[in-house]
Every structure is written in structure tokens, then in C-alpha cells.
């Protein structure tokens, strides 16, 4: 499990740039005047207390919530190439009545099966042995793993992860770190909001954005 695998070609040079970004929901500003640059092969960790706007910032970057001011752009991508990001939120978007493999197959079909084959991805996140089971039987941690497998079956440069390690055990934490590391290896970008410390082997790849209403 520890060998570094690089699947498919690596991405070109990309930069996620946010300028004067303010985000919030329901008319309440949660974070403002955010400026950051994330380059290919780098991971941005969002830190801060509950309610600091980490999740909202991720939703704003994903284009689901519109920014209150400023904006963000992923430079170096083709406008027509379709969505360039994977968003992985609190909710795992699993259908309990479909099997683990069927759940994953759907996302592969919808987002384009450009990455790993679905069974391989399940092996990678440690769910290979229960691929045929209904997703309803999965524990919270296993559901999380399945949600992470979705990032592997379709290749997209930018990952937006909201508490990726939530409900995961120690091995799971290691898995998240490995997945992020492998993604950075091929030139991907990661923005992750987390309370758990994520430590990549190469610390120079990490940058941190402290959020909170200390201002």
C-alpha cells in the first residue's frame, strides 16, 4: 500500500488564485479579504474553529455558493474542458440500496471514467472485499472511504476536501495522506479543511490558511 503509484498522465502547470475573496451564507460574511495562491503539487490546509467559514470557502471555490466579493480562478485549464474539480463534502452521497461498486460506477460514468477502474479504486481505499455489498451496510468510516474512491475514478486536477478524515481510523488517516500525496505527485492541487493534522512526507508542499474571526 505504500508504493507511490502515479496513475495516468500528470497535469500541466495550474494555479488556483483567490483575490479579495469574501464568502458567507445567508447574508452573513464568514470570511473576507482572502488572498491565496495554490500552485500545482501543493496542498492548502484550511484551519480554524467551527463557524470560521472553512466549509463555505470550499463551497465557494467549488462554485456552489457565489462569492460575496472578489473571486477565485484556476489558471492553466481549458475553459471548455468541463469541471476541473472534485468536491468532497461532509455528506458522502451514497445510496444505501446500491452496492458499493454500483455507487462508484455511477460516478465514474457521470464524471468520465478517466482514472482508475472502479474495482481498483475500491482496492486502493480498502473496500475491495465488500464491493458487492449494499452501501447501506457500510460504517461511517467505510462510507468515507467510498466517497474518497470517487476522487480516484475520474481524474480532475483540483480536489476540495471538507474534513476528509472525518470518521476515519488511524489507517484511514494514513490513506488520506497517501491519496493527497499521490495526487500532488502528479501535479494536482488540494484544498482541504481539517481539524485533524494532516502531515505530508514533504512538508514544503503544504501551506496553511488560518481562518477565524480574530480580525
Amino acid at each position: 500500500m505504500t508504493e507511490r503509484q502515479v496513475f495516468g498522465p500528470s497535469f500541466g502547470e495550474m494555479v488556483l488564485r483567490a483575490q479579495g475573496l469574501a464568502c458567507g451564507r445567508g447574508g452573513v460574511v464568514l470570511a473576507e479579504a482572502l488572498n491565496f495562491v495554490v500552485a500545482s503539487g501543493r496542498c492548502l490546509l484550511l484551519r480554524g474553529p467551527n463557524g470560521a467559514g472553512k466549509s463555505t470557502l470550499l463551497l465557494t471555490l467549488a462554485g456552489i455558493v457565489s462569492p460575496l466579493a472578489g473571486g477565485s480562478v484556476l489558471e492553466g485549464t481549458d475553459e471548455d474542458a468541463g469541471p476541473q474539480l472534485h468536491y468532497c463534502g461532509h455528506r458522502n452521497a451514497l445510496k444505501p440500496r446500491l452496492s458499493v461498486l454500483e455507487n462508484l460506477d455511477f460516478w465514474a460514468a457521470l464524471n468520465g471514467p478517466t482514472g482508475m477502474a472502479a474495482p481498483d479504486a475500491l482496492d486502493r481505499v480498502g473496500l475491495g472485499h465488500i464491493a458487492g455489498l449494499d452501501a447501506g451496510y457500510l460504517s461511517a468510516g467505510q462510507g468515507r472511504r467510498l466517497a474518497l474512491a470517487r476522487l480516484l475514478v475520474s481524474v480532475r486536477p483540483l480536489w476540495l476536501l471538507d474534513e476528509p478524515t472525518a470518521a476515519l481510523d488511524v489507517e484511514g488517516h494514513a490513506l488520506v495522506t497517501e491519496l493527497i500525496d499521490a495526487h500532488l505527485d502528479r501535479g494536482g492541487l488540494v484544498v482541504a479543511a481539517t481539524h485533524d493534522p494532516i502531515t505530508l512526507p514533504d512538508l514544503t508542499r503544504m501551506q496553511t490558511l488560518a481562518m477565524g474571526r480574530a480580525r
Partner: protein
Amino acid sequence: MTIETAPKQSWWNRIAHPGQFVAMTQRLLWPLTIITALLFVVGLWFAFFNSPEDYQMGDTVRIMYVHVPSAWLSQFVYAVMAVSALGTLVWRHPMADVSMKAAAPLGATFTVLALFTGSLWGRPTWGTFWEWDGRMTSTLVLLFIYLGIIALWRAFDDQLRAARVIAVFTLVGAVNIPIIKFSVDWWSTLHQPASVFRADGPTMPGSILTPLFVMFFAFTFLFLTLHLKAMHTEVRRRKLMALERQAVQAGVSA
């Protein structure tokens, strides 16, 4: 925050700021009220003392003076809401949300009045309170659309989010209302030979038109006045909600 360098803003931008909108239109409120009151006094005087009874409808023609303006407003208010909905969706104009929300109960009330006076007019004229006539039926459907919109406003917790969603529904309704009207007309002519409601047309003498016009303007100005006042209230309510939310937040971080 982006720095705004526009030295002079157009009125359009100025009213985009809720607080300034209230400040700017506050002055309009009293003149509008006075105009409305005067129009009603004149209109009612014409309606009762200075208009003849119709040779066909007799004195019941006087119901028209409140029925027709109500019916007009029931549609005009929806048009106001539809334009505001466009303002919300296309220009993201903050006052458009407010206008849309303030108009809905007014429109529903005038629609109820149109139905109420229509049925009181129908009893002596047609001999029944309710006739499944094309116009009355489509007005009834319109009332349900209004009530649906009001229910929708009440169902949402977050009013900013509600505005955009309700704007979509308002526009869907606006596209649908002509279709509903057409289908109901088609349906009512299928089931009965001809519509009975033929009060308009060249047979109407000027002495009836005068009070009708005055009342028409009186009702329209009444709507404009109430709408403006309700918009001011709505702006304040939003400020209030923002402050309350802020108070809660302050309580958490303290």
C-alpha cells in the same frame, strides 16, 4: 473588498442600497397617501352620486367601480412581481427581492376582492354567486398561485435564498398564466355557449367611464402606497434579522 471608485452613482445604483432606498422614497409616502385619499373621495362621489344607473344592469353597475380596479390590480401586481423577479435573477438588484415579497400579500388581497365583488355582482346579474366563467375561473387559479407564493415565502428560513428560488417560481407562473387563461377560456366555451361577462365595449357611456377611471387610479395609487410602505418595512425587517443573527454570533464568540 473591491474598491468602488465611481464618483457619481446613477439612481439605479443608489436605490440598490436598501438604506438609501428607504431614505430616498420616504418623502414620497405622504404625497402618495394624499393623492390616494383624494382619488378615493372623488371616485366614491362619482360612483354613488354622479353616475347614472345602467339601463341594463341597473344600480349593480356601481359594483363595477370596485370590481374592475381590483381585477386589474390582481394582474398588475403579478406583473410587478414578475418584473421584480427578473430584477432579482438578472440584475441581482437587492430591492427587487424586497419588492417581490412586499407585493405578494397585496396581490392576493386584491385578487380576493376581485372574486368577492365579482360574485356579488354575479348574483343579481347571472342569478348565481359563482359561475365557472373563464375570467372568474382564471382569477381563482391566480389566487392559488399568489397563495402558493406567500406560503413559499413563509416556508423559507433564509429570505435571501428564498428570493431567488421564488423569483424562479414567479416567472414560471408568469409564463403559465396566459396558458392557464387560454385553457380555461377554451374549457368554459366548451361547456357553455358564451361568456356572460360583456359589460365593456362601446355601449358603455362616458358617465360610467369617469368614475371607473377615477377608481381605477385610486386603487392603483393605493397599491403603490402600500407597496412602498411594505417595502420599507421589509428592508427594516432584513436589517433586524441581520442584527439578530449578529447578536447570536457575538454571543457565541464572547
